[in-house]
Every structure is written in structure tokens, then in C-alpha cells.
């Protein structure tokens, strides 16, 4: 009887969560992105880029090669997938459903198992679309008509399904720990993901997602069968020109050894043990404790608790006695109010880091301050900026804020101005030093960056209704800039971006983003309810 209840409750938690997720436009967009990824990651032979490089060789597009190529895309799915599933518990807290569940007989392990199952099911649905697309890509790009479904799809299922289970567990682990379940995890996971994917290079035993399993087997095979192979190999988006002139290597498919299965099972168990571990302390629906703990983290709220109603005397209003206010709109005062709204309630750690980097950018050599400190200073503001376009909705203030006078002409420009003021204030030391060094393109690029970042944050917030898109994309962009990738270099510090005039493109993109933000907000205002 009790077992039936347990199975039933887990199933229904998983079912409700699964249905809630897949019945959203965002999920449809995610599926569309998956289709696009597979389409792009099985490139035509003369496409000009490769996803799997074998130096002077290329794989013959048969079932085994295409299947392995798709399986090697697992790092991308583990990045994308995390952002699809990382709010299962948070949503229950936000909607209040969690409190209802907490008053039932369902225990923590049953609840988390249901959520884990749901996370996994969502990822499996994505994987089903990917599998279907793999067959389509074989029919489109295959160099042989001999379709071998086993060779085509087994790499995907044997390597990617466990990776998805690990991802489902990891997402639930972060989601269940209060301190990690806030916006910061969107940023933190990106760096964790880089660490996990890079660690696969150390040894097959540290390959958590099974990233290198296929590539290792392929390189062994090509090395054994083709002595003239130059030994080069790699995965990722590699711009290498057409592969048509490369020699052809025929890959017959993976040899599935027990070792491969044992490795996958080991990492699945390790990930599941994280869920079990977190279930020991899981109490996210205790909202009183949640509020109290959160408040203790804000310096200006230190020691304050929710005031009981009886401590406050009832209202005794006489409207006619109130002083009359004179209407006098001031854009500057509204921008200052917006700035206060942005900065109020931030953690002391953020303040110290920002102040420290700002001061450091005055005294450190310009090269370091410009290349590293300025992007990092702006990056530290990610969680502030990411809410700008969606905070009215997130805080349920949209109905009365959007019905205030001229919201499109007043509130949105004031939000944008406040964010630009913040960006420029943080950039002042570097901006002045770049100016006095005579690098006027640098000054122009920094000013463009100070416009681009808020415009991107606000537009993505308005268009998606959330903060995730900006948090993830901006993290990737900053990571790229710190590693010398010139695209989206919003400071102009990278030599190549200077040469190609990236700032001009960014300015054009900024204008486009501002137009998108205003258009989106205009729609929101007239459809707030």
C-alpha cells in the first residue's frame, strides 16, 4: 500500500512538472535550437567548417560516423539542457505549489525523485528529437544509402542518455541548495561546465559526460589503419575550409566494451548520490526560514524579521487632510530612483569586489586594467542588469507601473539611462586612461559597450520575460573576451576587434536591441493583464 503511494506520488510529481515545462513556448524554442544544432553539426563536406577534425583525414558519412558525430555534440546538449531544467524546485517555491506539497505525506526523497524523473524526461524528449534529426541528417548528408540504425543511434543512447541523467541530477542538486538556486547558478554552471568538459581531457576516468569516448576510439582506429595520418584531432566548431580534399577514413563504429558501460554507470551513481545527499538537508518550502535567512544576507536588513500585524496600529486615513502634490516630471529624478532600485539590497561581497576592481583599475598597468578588469567589472553587474527588463513582471508590479503616465517614454528610458550611468561609472578609470593614452577607438568602443550591455540586458529581459538568456549569453561573451575572442568585444581591447571595427557592429546591434526593447515593452504595456 505504502509502496503504491510512493510510486504514485513520484509519478504524479514528475508528470505535473514535465507537463508544466513542455507546455511553454520556451521549450518549443529549445527543441528548435536542438534541430538547428544537429543540422549545423552534421555539416556538408564542402561546408567550410568541421565539428570533428581528423587532420588530413575526414570521416566517410556513413551511419557510424554521423551517429558518432552527433554523440560528440554532447557538451552542447549538457550546456543547453541545464538552462532548460534548472528551476524545477524554484518554480514550486515561486508559485507556492511547494507549500501545498509540503503539507502532504510526500517526503523529501519522493519529491526530489519526482523532480529528478521530470528533469530526465524533459531531457529525454529533447534527445528523441535529436535522434529523429540524426536520421534525417543521415538521409540528407549520408554518402551511402545503407542506413544502419544501430550504428547511427547507439552512440547517442549509450553516451548521451547517461550524460542527460547526470545533468538532471546536477541541475536538481543546485536547484535544491538555497544559496545556489538564485540567478548566480546560471553563471556558475557555465564555469563548472567548462571545468567538467575540460577534465575529460585528463583521463577517460574523469570524463563525466562521456565527451571523449567516441573521439578516443576514432583516433585509435584511424591511427591503426592509416599510418600517414598526421595525428591531429579535435571537436568543436573548427573553421577549416572544405573537407573535400581530405583523405577518407571509414569508421565502422564503436566497440562497446564493459568498461564504457561501467564508467557511465559510475558517473550516474555519483550524480544520483548528490541528489540523495541534498535530500538530507532539503527544506526549501519552509518560507519563514527562507525569508529570514535571505534577509540576514542583506547588510541593510540585518537583524530584521517580518513584522507581525498586531505590532502596527490600524490605518486612520483622512484623505482631505493630505498635502497636495504638484505634478512636475523630472527624468533625472526618475533615473536616480531607477538607479536606487537597481542597487538596493545587493550583497556586501558584490560591493567589495566591485570597489576593489574599480580601485585596481586605477593603479594596475593599463593593459591589464583594460583587457581584464573592465570586462570583469561589467561582468560583476550581470545579476543586476539581467533583471532590468523583467523585474516588473517578476515582482508583479507590472499592472500599476505600466498604467502610470507615459511608461514607454519615461520608465524604460530611465531604466536604460540608470544602467548606462552604472556602466560608465565603473568604466571611468579605464576610460580616462585609454583616452589619455590616445586610443580614441578604445574610448569609442568602451562607450559603445556601456550602451550595448544595458540594451542587451533590457531587450532580452523584455523579450523572454526572464533573466536567464542575458545571464548565460553575457557570461559566454565575457568568457570569450577574456580568452581573446574578438566577436562581441565590447571594450575594444582585443587587437583583432580593433582591426575589424567590432564596435561599429556593436553600435548597430545596440540600436536594434533598443528598438526591440521598446517594441516589446509597448506590447507589454497594452497587454499587461
Amino acid at each position: 500500500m505504502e509502496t503504491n503511494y510512493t510510486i504514485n506520488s513520484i509519478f504524479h510529481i514528475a508528470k505535473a512538472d514535465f507537463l508544466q515545462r513542455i507546455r511553454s513556448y520556451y521549450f518549443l524554442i529549445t527543441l528548435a535550437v536542438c534541430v538547428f544544432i544537429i543540422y549545423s553539426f552534421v555539416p556538408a563536406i564542402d561546408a567550410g567548417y568541421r565539428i570533428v577534425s581528423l587532420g588530413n583525414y575526414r570521416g566517410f558519412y556513413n551511419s557510424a560516423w554521423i551517429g558518432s558525430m552527433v554523440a560528440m555534440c554532447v557538451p552542447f546538449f549538457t550546456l543547453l539542457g541545464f538552462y532548460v531544467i534548472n528551476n524545477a524546485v524554484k518554480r514550486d517555491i515561486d508559485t507556492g505549489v511547494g507549500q501545498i506539497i509540503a503539507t502532504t505525506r510526500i517526503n523529501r526523497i519522493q519529491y526530489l525523485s519526482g523532480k529528478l524523473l521530470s528533469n530526465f524526461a524533459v531531457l529525454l524528449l529533447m534527445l528523441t528529437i535529436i535522434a529523429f534529426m540524426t536520421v534525417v541528417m543521415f538521409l540528407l548528408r549520408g554518402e551511402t544509402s545503407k542506413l544502419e540504425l544501430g550504428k547511427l543511434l547507439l552512440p547517442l543512447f549509450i553516451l548521451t542518455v547517461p550524460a542527460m541523467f547526470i545533468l538532471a541530477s546536477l541541475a536538481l542538486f543546485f536547484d535544491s541548495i538555497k544559496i545556489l538556486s538564485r540567478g548566480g547558478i546560471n553563471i556558475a554552471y557555465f564555469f563548472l561546465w567548462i571545468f567538467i568538459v575540460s577534465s575529460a581531457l585528463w583521463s577517460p576516468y574523469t570524463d563525466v559526460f562521456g565527451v571523449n569516448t567516441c573521439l578516443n576510439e576514432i583516433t585509435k582506429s584511424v591511427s591503426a589503419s592509416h599510418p600517414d595520418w598526421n595525428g591531429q584531432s579535435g571537436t568543436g566548431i573548427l573553421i577549416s575550409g572544405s573537407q573535400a580534399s581530405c583523405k577518407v577514413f571509414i569508421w565502422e563504429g564503436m566497440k562497446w566494451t564493459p568498461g564504457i558501460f561501467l564508467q557511465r554507470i559510475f558517473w550516474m551513481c555519483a550524480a544520483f548520490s548528490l541528489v540523495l545527499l541534498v535530500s538530507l538537508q532539503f527544506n526549501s518550502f519552509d518560507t519563514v526560514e527562507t525569508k529570514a535567512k535571505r534577509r540576514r544576507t542583506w547588510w541593510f536588513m540585518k537583524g530584521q524579521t517580518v513584522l507581525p500585524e498586531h505590532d502596527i496600529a490600524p490605518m486612520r486615513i483622512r484623505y482631505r487632510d493630505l498635502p497636495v502634490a504638484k505634478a512636475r516630471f523630472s527624468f533625472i529624478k526618475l533615473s536616480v530612483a531607477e538607479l536606487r532600485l537597481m542597487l538596493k539590497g545587493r550583497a556586501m561581497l558584490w560591493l567589495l569586489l566591485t570597489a576593489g576592481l574599480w580601485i585596481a583599475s586605477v593603479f594596475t598597468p593599463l593593459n591589464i586594467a583594460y583587457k581584464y578588469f573592465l570586462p570583469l567589472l561589467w561582468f560583476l553587474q550581470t545579476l543586476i542588469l539581467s533583471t532590468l527588463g523583467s523585474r516588473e513582471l517578476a515582482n508583479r508590479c507590472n499592472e500599476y507601473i505600466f498604467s502610470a503616465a507615459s511608461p514607454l517614454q519615461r520608465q524604460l528610458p530611465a531604466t536604460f539611462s540608470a544602467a548606462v550611468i552604472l556602466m560608465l561609472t565603473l568604466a571611468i578609470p579605464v576610460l580616462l586612461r585609454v583616452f589619455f593614452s590616445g586610443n580614441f577607438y578604445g574610448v569609442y568602443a568602451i562607450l559603445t559597450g556601456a550602451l550595448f550591455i544595458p540594451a542587451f540586458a533590457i531587450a532580452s529581459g523584455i523579450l523572454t520575460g526572464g533573466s536567464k538568456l542575458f545571464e548565460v549569453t553575457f557570461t559566454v561573451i565575457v568568457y570569450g573576451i577574456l580568452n581573446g575572442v574578438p566577436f562581441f568585444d565590447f571594450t575594444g581591447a582585443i587587437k583583432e576587434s580593433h582591426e575589424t571595427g567590432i564596435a561599429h557592429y556593436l553600435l548597430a546591434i545596440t540600436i536594434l536591441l533598443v528598438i526591440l526593447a521598446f517594441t516589446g515593452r509597448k506590447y507589454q504595456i497594452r497587454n499587461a493583464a
Partner: protein
Amino acid sequence: MEISIKGVSKKYKGNKYGLKDFNLELKNGILGLIGPNGAGKSTLMRILATISRPTEGQICLDGTDIVKFPDTVRKVLGYLPQDFGVYPNLTAIEFLEYIAALKGFTGKSIKLRIEALLEELNLTIVKNRPIGTYSGGMKQRIGIAQVLVGDPSLIILDEPTVGLDPEERVRFRNLLTDLSGERIVILSSHIVSDIETMASEVAIVYQGRVLKHGFPVEKGSLEDTYLQAIASAKNGGGNGD
């Protein structure tokens, strides 16, 4: 001030109507809207607050079409939605100053008004605390304060007494009585006694239409009138407007 609502309909997907051929003329005073859940009260209020658009019909404020020129309403509006939130990190003063700045009120006069409002709403003692620490009733009072911050001449209150204790409800009723005069107040509530006490006229709304409007409100009579009108409508009775 006059509001004229003519043939207003709000159609949703699946051929469902929030409002259907809704007609009402409003003059200064307090209009109480009463009706069952899903009758269209909140839909009407949102359309009047210009955050939702009707699919048909016309609404005019002193002769100006508010669908085409929403700022006509926004300049004079104070709106309390049924389900609203606040910015939890701001204090009561900061929050009201922000709302005032949005509405176009800055300077010393608004600061004095905010202080007085907080005093009258008995929130002075907590005015420098973040609103996130407030209880439900106090947040509701902050909601009422943001409505009144700019001295609006059109006030729309969707279930304003939710979360207020009985004593506060009585005082809120007094406030509304004090508010009436040269302004239109539109108030919706499920609590018949609230409407009975506060409204100078009542409209019974059912299935997106006005079922009955313009009848005198006598103490103790509204509940019977309401139940009879709804029963009559369910039995296929006509529009009693």
C-alpha cells in the same frame, strides 16, 4: 469627470468573452462592481486602466477615446490591481517616491504627501524598513498608498479589502467615503457589505455584461438584489440594466 463605456467586448482565444457588449455611463462618485468569479469585473478594470485592450467598443473619458489615447487616463489614474507585488528591497518611502516619480511627481510637495500618507496609513514606524519585511496587510496598505500618491481623479480598486483585518476594513470604508467628491472611484469586491457601505451606485456584472445598474443601495438589500439578479440570469432572464 465622465466615463462612457459603449459596446465593449473582450474576446479571448476559443471564442470566449471576458466582456460582451458592455455598456455603462459613469459620473463622479463610487461605483461598486459586484459579480461572481469570472464575471468580467477585473477585465473591465484592466481595460479602464489601459493595460488591456478591448476587442470591440469604445471607452471615452470626458469625450476622449482612452483606447486610442491611453495617457488621458494614465495621467489621472490610481490603480490597485487584485494581485500585485512590490519591490521588496526598497523601503516604503523609496518605493512611493519611485512610483511618484513614474507618475510625474517630484520635489518637496510629494515628499510631504508621502510622509503624510504613511502617517495616515500608520506605516511611519516601518517607513525605513524594506517592504519585503512587511506582513500581508501592510503590503496591502502600501498598495493603497501608491494609488493615492498622485492625488488621482480616477481610482480603480480591484478587491482592495483583501488582506485587511476587520478594523482596517472599516477605516478603509471611511477613506473611500472621504475620497468621493470630484472623482470617479470604481471598486470591485466579493464582500457584499463592503459594496453596500461604500458605493454610491452598484453594477451587478454577470458573464461579461451588466445585469443590473443604477438601482438605489439600501443597507441590507444588496445581497437579496444580487442573488435574485443572478438567479434570474441563470434562468434565462433578460438584462435588467
